[in-house]
Structures are given as structure tokens and as C-alpha cells.
């Protein structure tokens, strides 16, 4: 089959646009300034790069924020991720899955790398938090 027909045309879902426009968890809007955990993922040269910062106590993530350069899918995904990780118990992060995000935000298959990028970031934050609590 011709590549053109395989490629899904980008159409943003209304939920994606809502998350993109809201950006409640953006570090620019409500920054984390005190001691925090931090991770970076992606490649700035690819125009797809994220920074996630969070405050946590021994049990859970208290506040989580992001900085980003990337497409609307990446920006909305980060907003969704932070909304779902804030107040989460550290022990539960391992079970946290991003597998449904493709469907939730209607992310086209050619943008699948967004999920991998977020998984890397979440995993790194989780390891930092575990290290701190043990």
C-alpha cells in the first residue's frame, strides 16, 4: 500500500486541545523552586525535549511540573502525565502505565516516540524517588 494511505492525517482531538491550552502543570505557570527531583528526556535538536521536576516526601509525589519544547501531542501528554502523577504514591508509580495514552489523546502512530520519551522520564523520576526513600 502507498505510504500516503498508511499515514493518518493529524487531527487534534478536543481533549488534546483542552490539555494543550490548559497547561496547569507547566513550570512556567506554577513553578517548583525549592529542592526537587528532576529529569530530562528527548533531544533538543529534534525539537522534542522535556524536563520534569517534582517535590516528594517519603510516600508520594507532592508537586510535579514540566518544561518542554515539542509538538501539541507532547505538550498535552505532559499535562496529562503530571495530572495523573501528582499525589501518587511512590510505590504505585511502577504500576503506572502510559499504554492507553495513545488512544486517550489520539496520538498518531508516527508520534509513538512520545510515549517512549515519557516512559524514560517517569522511570528516571521513580528511580530517583526510590533511591531517596531507601
Amino acid at each position: 500500500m502507498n505510504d500516503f494511505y498508511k499515514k493518518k492525517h493529524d487531527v487534534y482531538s478536543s481533549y488534546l486541545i483542552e490539555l494543550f491550552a490548559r497547561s496547569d502543570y507547566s513550570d512556567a505557570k506554577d513553578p517548583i523552586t525549592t529542592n526537587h527531583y528532576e529529569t530530562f528526556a528527548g533531544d533538543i535538536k529534534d525539537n522534542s525535549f522535556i524536563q520534569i521536576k517534582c517535590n516528594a516526601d517519603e510516600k508520594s509525589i507532592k508537586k510535579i511540573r514540566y518544561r518542554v519544547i515539542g509538538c501539541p501531542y507532547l505538550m498535552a501528554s505532559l499535562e496529562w502525565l503530571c495530572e495523573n502523577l501528582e499525589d501518587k504514591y511512590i510505590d504505585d508509580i511502577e504500576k503506572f502505565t502510559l499504554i492507553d495514552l495513545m488512544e486517550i489523546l489520539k496520538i498518531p502512530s508516527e508520534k509513538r516516540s512520545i510515549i517512549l520519551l515519557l516512559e524514560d522520564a517517569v522511570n528516571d523520576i521513580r528511580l530517583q524517588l526510590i533511591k531517596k526513600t531507601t
Partner: protein
Amino acid sequence: MNGSNKTSKIYMDGAATMPTDPDVIESMIACLNNKELFANPSSVHISGRDAMQKIEKARDQISKLINANKEDLIFTSGATESNNIAIIGSAKFRADHGQHLITMTTEHKAVSGPFDYLEKEGFEVTRLRPSSDGLLDIKKLKKAIREDTQLVSIMHINNEIGAIQNISEIASICNDQDVLFHCDAAQSVGKISLDLKELPIDLLSISAHKFYGPQGIGALFIREAHKVKLLPITHGGEQEMWVRPGTLPLHQIIGFGVAAKLAMTRMREDQLLMKDLSGYFFEKIRVLPDIFLNGPNKSRYPGIINIRAPRVNGESLLLLLEPLCVAQGSACNSKNSEPSLVLRELGLNDHEIQSSVRFSFTRNTTRDDVDFAVEKYISAVNQLRKNYPSNINE
């Protein structure tokens, strides 16, 4: 006026397509409503002859716009088809003159596509790279022409950056060397003056919807069409000198003719408007630090402005700019997530290409629209930059 209060769409994507002029629409509707004109223009009965008369009137109007003989103009479905017929049709017909062809790396896909095809068919293609401002160094062209070169194809105004190539000099060089010169003038016809009795251009592609005519109709100028032969690339009828068979779409051609007539009367006014809007745009936008113009400062069509803002993702920028309708590169390439080839040829990296946006004005654009666009652009760029990752080594 506070531009940010606007909620209706503001159209600044004229390089992709211009809004159809109301006079053009009126002429097309009148044609479709006129039962006396309902006929295939190729039919020999009285209705067919009446329809053909209208076709010839439109052909005359379009040929006057470029000061060409109307016998040298054939109708096509648009510039893409014109480019295909001109490039493939002439290269194949003149294959015995030589198998070497020359074009530029910054051409529209409607030109680069036919060259890619011909290359697979055994032709040799030289693709000249522009200078960092998008303009062709004429010395490169002179050096590239060989004894077996039979065709050069270079666009007039670049659709992404507005660079205006010196087609007068290019045409003269080709003419002196007995090489055919084709020019994709989709972005220039109707906007800047073209005199084909003066310019030694052999083949010129025209698109109606780029100058307020209807979509789906265009033309190809073939100098001394009866002498410069082209092999048709479609077959099945004798219309348009056998070069482009198929029923002529009367209402579209009538609209095309009206658009050409309007362009002649409004060209100076349109040019002054584009110059004014462009100057106003730059005056307003300079408060935003760290932005750059892609393409040349001089020899640029003022109705197309391509700017880049480092530390910003263009796709997110476009979404934040809504309801402003602007573009990232060519509309004909927008389903392809590959970065713009034109901007890459200027030496920009992926990040710089991604952070670029094209504004292109129409004759309906106002200073108020520019106020809105600039205000929106500055706010969006600032918002995205504010949330750019911090403490990173770039």
C-alpha cells in the same frame, strides 16, 4: 483596535491559495446558471460554439496579463499539471537534443517530482543549490549548462520564502545556449508584471487560484506552441492542440479569465498593499527578540514572510496562533512530517526549520489583521519560550 479579541478566522495563507474574488464567483455562477451556455465547448453545434467563444475570450484575458499570444496558451487543471506537461512533455520530445536537465533544489514538488520521474527514465538531472538567501547564483547555472542540456526549469517566486529569482537573466542565458527554459510562475502571475514578448521564456506554468481565481484550473504558456512540440502525457482527445486532452471546464475558465482581467487592473494597488503590510508587519514584530527572516531581504515578494523563532516548536506555535491561518512550509507538503526542503537548502537545521512559520497576505488582508497576527505571534512565542526547558546545555 485590540486584535486579541477576534474570534473569527484571519486568513494569512495566500501562498497556499487566495480567496476567490467575488467578481470571479459571480461570473462562474452566471455561467453555470446560463442554460444557453450549457454545452461542451468542443461540440460543433451552436451552444458548443458559444461556449468555445467564452473560452477564447478567457484565453485572451489571460494572455494579456502576461503579454503573450493567446494561441500559445493551453488550459490545464493547475500549475502542477502544467509543470508536468512542460517538463516531462518537452524532455521526452526533445530527448534526441540531449538527456541533461537542470533545476533547483528549492523547487516546488510539482517541479521536483517530474524531474525525479525523468531521472528514473534515464535522464540526467543537475539540481542547483541556492545561496543561503534562497537566490540562485547565476554563475552556477552558466557552469552547469552543457552541450547536451536541453531544459532548465526554475521557479519565479518561491512559495515558501518569497525569493524572486532573476528569470530575465536566466531566460537570456538559456536562450543564448539554445536550451529550453521553463518557469513555474504559479506564485508570480497576477502579482508581478510579466511580459512574455520581452522575456525569452519558452514554457511558463500558471495557476488561477494563486491570484484570486478558482481552484482546479491553470494554464501552460508554450512559446510558438505550434513549433515547440511537447509530447502529451495524457491521451484521449484533441483539445488544447492535442497536448492536454479533456473537456474544458467552462465556468472555471471564465472565472480564470475574470481573475486575470482583475489582476491587470489591480496589480499596482495589490503590490502597494503587500509592500505596506510587509513593512507594517516587520515594524510591529521587531519588539520580539531573537527572530529571523528566512529568505532574502531584497528580491523578495513582500506578500510572503517566513520567520523563525528559536526555542519554539512550529506545530505548537500554529495551534496557539489559531484562529490565525498561517502555514509551516508548503501546503502541498503539509501531510508529510518531514521538515521543509526549501528551508533546509538555506542551511537551516531541523530545529530552525521546525520553528519557522509562513505568513502570506491576500488583497483582503488589513493592517488590523496584521495587528492581530503580530500580537498573537508575540504572545504565543513568549508563552512557548517561557516554558522552554531550563539549565540545559545546548
